[in-house]
């Protein structure tokens, strides 16, 4: 019963939040200077009042703003996000096209960030103030502070262009055609096709952009893991366990790390939410057709149905991730379940 109430509250919260986001973004896109007609029609077409009028009528831009809002919300209730002014295609299908590319890359990056971030954080904590700790801290600070577009060019230049260690931009090598779309994620779709070489090729194309995107979150995770682990290691129950003769590895893995990971989960959740919103510059450099590029082009074109669509998607991402993180708190820390 409690669980049902909890779920119901969450769903109502989700609906209210999505409504708020849609309204806010609609108002903002109308307030900021930028006319979709001027942004999308050519200089020549803009000189023809007939073409301009037809264009405005087609996208409902000739209606008063309030009417546009009511119409948009009415369609939204029927899960219709409208038609993109830039591409002339349904926004939902445009998001369905570019979101899987972002999801695939974001999950790969967050796994890299989480695995290496936690690993480095633990090493740094148990070797506190050693040379290794200093190196790990320097790496994590660099990861947090390095501009992603510059890092992207750097890794592409060295690992692809100069030393030919990793494949170049794009999602697949030229020798492979895109797999039939099931999930839109090439690794998974290739596996569903039973084409292992193609899946491995797609996986290898994730490495460089994944590394670039992971760098920032990995730095944060390393620092958070280190500081929390150090806090936990100084607690009484750890001292007691150590006094009872428990080995260091067992002490960290079974007693300390679980407690230290709760704040790390929050960082991972926020990092994933950030990555799922798309990263324009990295996507551009790695020729990755994700949500970031779509959002960027939509803003340039004052394509408000697409801008709202992306905003709703990002809001939804955070809502879902926060819920999952809340559940995982309970899995890691039984005290949370009791509360």
């Amino acid at each position, binding site marked *: 019963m409690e669980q049902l109430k909890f779920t119901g509250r969450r769903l109502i919260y989700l609906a209210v939040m999505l409504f708020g986001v849609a309204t806010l973004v609609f108002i903002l896109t109308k307030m*900021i*200077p*930028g*006319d979709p007609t*001027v*942004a999308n029609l*050519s*200089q*020549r*077409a*803009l*000189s*023809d009042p007939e*073409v301009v009028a037809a264009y405005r009528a*087609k996208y409902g831009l000739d209606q008063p703003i309030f009417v546009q809002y009511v119409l948009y919300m009415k369609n939204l209730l029927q899960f219709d996000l409208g038609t*993109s002014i*830039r*591409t*002339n*295609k349904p926004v939902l299908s445009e998001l369905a096209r570019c979101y899987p590319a972002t999801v695939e890359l974001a999950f790969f990056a967050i*796994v*890299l960030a989480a*695995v290496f971030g936690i690993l480095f954080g633990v090493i740094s904590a148990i070797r506190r103030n050693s040379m290794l700790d200093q190196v790990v801290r320097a790496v994590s600070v660099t990861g947090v502070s390095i501009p992603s577009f510059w890092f992207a060019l750097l890794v*592409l*230049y060295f690992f*692809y*262009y100069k030393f*030919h*260690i*990793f*494949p*170049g*931009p*794009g*999602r697949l*090598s*030229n*020798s*492979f*055609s*895109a797999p039939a779309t099931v999930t839109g994620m090439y690794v998974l779709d290739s596996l569903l096709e*039973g*084409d*292992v*070489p*193609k899946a*491995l090729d797609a996986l*290898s194309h*994730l*490495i460089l952009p994944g590394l670039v995107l992971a760098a920032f979150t990995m730095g944060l995770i390393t620092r958070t893991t280190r500081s929390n682990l150090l806090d936990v290691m100084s607690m009484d129950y750890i001292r007691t366990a150590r006094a009872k003769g428990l080995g260091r590895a067992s002490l960290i*893995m079974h007693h300390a790390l*679980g407690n230290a990971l709760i704040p790390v989960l929050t960082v991972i959740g926020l990092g994933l939410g950030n990555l799922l919103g798309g990263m324009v510059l990295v996507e*551009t*450099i790695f*020729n990755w*057709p994700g949500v970031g*590029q779509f959002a960027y*082009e939509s803003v*340039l*074109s004052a394509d408000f149905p697409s801008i709202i669509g992306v905003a709703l998607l990002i809001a939804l991402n955070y809502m879902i991730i926060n819920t999952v993180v809340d559940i995982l708190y309970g899995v890691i820390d039984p005290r949370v379940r009791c509360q």
Partner: protein
Amino acid sequence: MKKRFLAVILSLAVAAGCVACGGNDNAGGSDSPAQGEETGETSDQSGETSDQTGGSNTVVVAMGAGFSTVDPGYVYEKYPPLIVNACYENLFKFYSNDSAPEPCLAESYEFSEDNLTLTVKLKEGVTFASGNPMTSADVLFSINRCKNLQGNPAFIAETIESMEAPDDQTVVFHLTQADSAILSKLTYSSLAVLDSAVVKENGGTDAEDASTTDTAQAYLDTTSAGSGMYVMTSYIPDEEVVLEKNPNYWGEGTNVDKYIIKIQPDANTQMMTLSTGDIDVAMNMTDDTIAELADAQNVEIINAATKTVGFVMMNMNETYGGPVSDPKVQQAIRKALDYSGLQVICGEGTLTPYSLIQSGFMGSKGERPADYTNVEEAKALLAEAGYGDGLDVDLTVSDLDMEGILLTDLAQKIKDDLAQIGINVNIVSQPWAAGYGDAYRDGTLGFTVMYWGTDYNDPNVQLEFLPGGVVGLRAGWTADMNPELAAMYQETMSATDNDDRIAALEKIQDAAYEEGPFIMAVQAPAHIGYNTRLDGVAISDPYALDLTLINIK
């Protein structure tokens, strides 16, 4: 459990790393085919669906982004014509960049005495990729559809009042006015001839309400429906387009079986992928990235001027132009600009046209003399205009770029040049979509630097810069301000004979050489890098790159 989970993740990461080690062995700017072909064997082993290259004659091209459809009825941006030209054909075509249009699907053509009717006889035996024969009904459908979709390219058919098809092989165009550019307009990608039966089956219509009822775009974004040398077999927006040879092509094709067109907006990425052999042609190189390839083996570079022109506009209407509406001040500015300096900013291949017509167009008088700039003369002109002590003026500039060159960079150079004659320029930045576009269109900008991409490949596009023309009016230059020059609009439009056209165009260039509110400062360059295994790669203003002329050596 946690240990197992971590172990699985680590294993995945290690596996990914191992896979990646097989990354790219085709490095070092080899003259071998793009990477896809070399890995063809591997992909064959994985099954037929993995092999995208379709043999050894595959060419990989990288081009820029900025478009979202390849439906000919809507295409207007720079790159879609590259695809449309390979998959569709028009009545006429430019077989080289600076030539006049020549018949393609047309067999012959004839203008009426009054130049108001154009009769085109179609080639016989032309079939679409579907196997359907191409007839005059397809031509009518395609042109009417473009017109009635009322998209960006609809203007191209504005001088076509009506069309008729007396028989399957004849199309008669009735024009609203004599139009010496009509053959060039008929080469335009948006007027490509579609397989009307296939397009209609998939929601296409040429009815007057096509702008709201036509639904064929979704279909034409998945495959093509033309008679061209290639068929589009895949289009993944913002990622890649795949073209394969049209098995029913009626003409003689090249030896390239397949094109993989990668959409790579970043010039550095293109430079790297060209160097490593992953692509064969890089369309969006910049001066910097070209320099990186200076020592690359088996890479050829083309630097050449496009017909996209950067110009200075000084409003003739004193209300908006203030001092720059004075013809003497305009001439002083014209004399003060350092054109060779502007060319350096834009990069190798840039040139300054003689006058209103770009170099490369029929009738062009070439380039403005290199020694045209004269600061002392400019100062004297300014003094003569009553501004011996100098003047202050706002130069409004938008956030747009011209073939990758920021207009703000040009504005900065103009500011520096004019400072030498005592004109203090204050640069005012304004986004295109947030004010600049409206002001530019309404003719309320006083002094600006802007660019003009040719709507279609014909010198008549420049007639809009004449007094009373679309762009002329944006500079407050009404026909009554220079009736003689304004009259040249009609004279040139009516000159369907090439010699008459050239004479009319030369007259315009001489008349506007030192007259009027426009200074044609630069023709922006294009930089293309390509693998030397290819033959026939060339800059193309109408098609960006004409894939139907490329062969593998």
